[in-house]
């Protein structure tokens, strides 16, 4: 059933919420300043609840099943996190309350900073950035400020592997840097010879995701960091794949100078349909003076406070102190794991990925034949020869009840299928997914049309994206009700 839009459910005179009577006289604002029209839908509360409940049933979610989106770490989001984030002591405190009345919140943030620094091997953290990409922006601005402080304004180039997330070059450009793409070698590592060709005193940084987006740990990461540092550049770490290495290696130990963390990946804060996330940034001593302000500090008397007295700070990344509600969840998750629990996460995430890899690599091409970390990338090129594309395989997986993996990324793998199972899944689920993938490969051979026209079991068939982009319809048109003009 097509669910009507709110605008289509609207009937003049309906309302879904009522205010108590006012206790003070009403004051009319001048007409020149007020609006004549407020064309919002008019719907009752039950209609609203049913509308959104029905919409929820048109979604797929971790709570419904396996969601192996590569590079997104779709792990279980523990329910306890939702409970604690809603405690009034967290959900109902104002960012401009006097510090004496928010000591619990500041303490939580301070402790979270310390735990994130310990997990990654760094010395300081900021929790301000609102998302991974925002953390990248923060980290690259830190690098910019660092070089400027040292008088090295000629450092305008940023080296980025061709396997990197699109946010890396986009972020570097937002910071005024020029980007240089570095190719990947035949083992799936950054090509060291090509990297060295670019290293000179115009290099500000290298941005590296490790494990990289092929799900492979960079075999030359120590050498790479050393070479970049010798040229005077800094190593930016994209922490998108931190789940793979929790407790297994600390990014600071392999030469990174700064790293952003996606709490919505590694630390289980809900993805929310695509936000909110949080993108804390951890740094070593060299970059610490430049961290955004205000910083959450512990004062000599043991109280916690917000401190803006850092003259070299890059300033503020966003209003207030970060996505506090998200950070409460990340804090709870880390406290419920401890050091041993975090180590188990990476252990099982890597185990699950390798198990699935082994189950699938005979049927789909595996371009880089190595032990993977928390994810791996297959190629649908063998199936493409049968006239079936990776997109078709993805859509067919929907019929088997699975969310499709990330497809067509990284860009360097033809017809890429990027699979990240996470530590949350049972062996039964992994086996069922593998069976579905193998069955689809068989369908590609025997009944390619079935795959090309998938999905067949959802309410909607494949949607026309070209039409959406060519003739954009980006909002409803509301038939205005006269009752609006009250």
């Amino acid at each position, binding site marked *: 059933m097509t669910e009507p839009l*709110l605008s289509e459910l609207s009937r003049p005179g309906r309302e879904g*919420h009522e*205010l108590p009577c006012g206790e*003070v006289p009403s004051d009319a*604002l001048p007409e020149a300043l007020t*609006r004549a029209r*407020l064309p*919002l*839908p008019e719907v009752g509360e039950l209609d609203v*609840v049913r509308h*959104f409940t029905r*919409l929820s049933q*048109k979604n*797929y979610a971790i709570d*419904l099943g396996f969601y192996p989106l590569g590079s*997104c770490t779709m792990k279980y989001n523990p329910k306890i996190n939702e409970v*604690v984030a809603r405690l009034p002591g*967290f959900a109902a405190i*104002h960012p*401009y309350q006097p510090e004496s009345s928010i000591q619990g*919140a500041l*303490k939580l943030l301070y402790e979270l900073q310390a735990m994130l620094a*310990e997990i990654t091997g760094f010395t300081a953290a900021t929790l301000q950035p*609102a*998302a991974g*990409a925002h953390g990248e922006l923060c980290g690259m601005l830190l690098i910019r400020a660092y070089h400027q402080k040292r008088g090295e304004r000629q450092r305008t180039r940023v080296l980025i592997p061709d396997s990197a997330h699109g946010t890396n070059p986009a972020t*570097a450009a937002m910071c005024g840097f020029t*980007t240089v793409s570095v190719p990947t070698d035949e083992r799936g590592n950054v090509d060291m010879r090509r990297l060295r060709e670019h290293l000179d005193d115009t290099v500000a940084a290298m941005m590296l995701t490790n494990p990289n987006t092929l799900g*492979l740990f960079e075999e030359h*990461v120590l050498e790479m960091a050393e070479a970049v540092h010798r040229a005077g550049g800094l190593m930016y770490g994209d922490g998108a794949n931190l789940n793979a*290495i929790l*407790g*297994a290696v*600390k990014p600071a130990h392999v030469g990174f100078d700064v790293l952003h963390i996606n709490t919505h990946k590694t630390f289980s804060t809900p*993805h929310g*349909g*695509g*936000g*909110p996330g949080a993108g804390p940034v951890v740094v070593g001593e060299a970059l610490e003076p430049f961290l955004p302000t205000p910083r959450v500090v512990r004062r000599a008397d043991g109280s916690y406070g917000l401190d803006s007295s850092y003259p070299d700070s890059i*300033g*503020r990344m*966003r*209003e207030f102190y970060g996505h*506090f509600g998200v950070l409460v969840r990340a804090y*709870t998750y880390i406290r*419920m794991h401890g050091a041993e629990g975090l180590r188990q996460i990476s252990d099982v995430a*890597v185990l699950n990925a390798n198990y699935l890899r082994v189950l699938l690599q005979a049927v789909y091409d595996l371009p880089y034949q190595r032990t993977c970390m928390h994810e791996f990338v297959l190629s649908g090129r063998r199936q493409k020869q049968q006239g079936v594309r990776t997109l078709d395989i993805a859509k067919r997986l929907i019929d088997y009840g699975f*969310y*499709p993996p990330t497809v067509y990324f990284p860009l360097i793998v033809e017809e890429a299928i990027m699979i990240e199972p996470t530590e949350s899944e*049972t*062996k039964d689920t992994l086996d069922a997914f593998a069976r579905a993938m193998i069955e689809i490969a068989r369908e590609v051979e025997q009944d390619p049309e079935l795959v090309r026209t998938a999905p067949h079991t959802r309410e909607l068939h*494949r*949607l*026309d994206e070209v039409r*959406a982009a060519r003739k*954009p*319809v*980006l*909002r409803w048109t*509301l038939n205005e009700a006269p009752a609006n003009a009250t």
Partner: protein
Amino acid sequence: MGFIPISESERREMLARIGVADSRALFEVIPEAVRFPSLTLPERLTEIEALAHLRALASENRDLTQLACFVGAGVYNHYVPSAVDAILSRGEFYTAYTPYQAEMSQGTLQYMFEFQSLVCELTGLDVANASVYDGSTATAEAVLMAQRLTGRERVVVSGALHPEYREVLCTYLEGLGLTPVEAGLELRSDGLDVRPAEELVDEKTACVVIQQPDFFGQVRDLSGVAERCHAAGALLIIAVAEAASLGLLKSPGEWGADIAVAEGQSLGMPIAFGGPYAGLMATRSDYVRQLPGRIVGETVDATGKRGFVLTLQAREQHIRREKATSNICTSQTLLALAATVYLALLGPRGLRAVAQRSHDNAVYLADRIAALPGYRVVTRRPFFNEFAVIGPAPAPAVREQALAAGYLAGYDLGRSYPALANGLLLACTELSSRAQMDGLVEVLRQVGRAA
């Protein structure tokens, strides 16, 4: 460990299938010297222990169920109807991700489309994105967008733009080596004068950024402002830090804004110590291809049925990389859902009522404070639901005394405006009861007497 469901025998079976004896072998690619470092974290907690611990931490905060809230400054204590959180708590919504596979994500995609439509109605503009992080980053993104659209660099901002929005804008522009030009303000004997930012527009200016109502709560007649900006070839950006005001006030589109941005917090989002919220962003249809962020469009499926997809993705980082409109790759989707449910529940009369009641309460409170000896309301009227007061004592001391009596007595203006050291910015909402307002007046009277 409760969240990892693999049994020991399954584990052995999987390792055998992979062909290794021990999972540690899977990590051998990590250089030995740095592999499996020591990790020192607090002891692991069970759920029962974690809940007790988090409750204890939460109880070290004094929250708005115990305090009367008269602080706003970009975050407002509006009521959130119960249905909002009931919907947001559905796992189908909050444990989904960006709707990459449209056929499996129509729920998210449809409410994003509805959200965009509602933002257009509120702002009076043609197109909106599915939200960005918050009001401050929306403002910064709008400025970058204006620079791309005009090919100009100079940026003029009002001194009455939220101080933290200005700070964030400076951070974003610093990446490009630029600094915004700020129109100042002056405290006169008869009130606070904010210099109209459009007076500083010139032929090199990309955009002028004005907040309405401004940071001090004042609602300005913006007639002619857009014309003045456009005559110089610049764009007008109107920022709204109190989205509930859009229920009553003329929309940014009606004032001629080219881009409107707003902090969405007032529309059904818990205050939560500053976030997460959602940044609203709308513009004219001509400019849609320079709009950053996710955008959802309507289309049809192979059988002609209506459906929704992410669209105009050629603007975005995963396709355009360094040439993208922004590095942003998510919206604040779940918070956009909160705003959508909130606006659906309130409807036009409800939102108008929230706005009018917030305004009425602020007028009542301001009149009473203005009558107190030693206090001066300096925001020029009309104001919306917030106004600045210069009191007889430094703001931090007043705030502490009020806190002791159970009141959050406004934002300390001296934090961002040194000339306003005794200044408090006080806000009301529909939740400000007469008893609370009278109580605050009494506290301020006592502070005044002591000073």
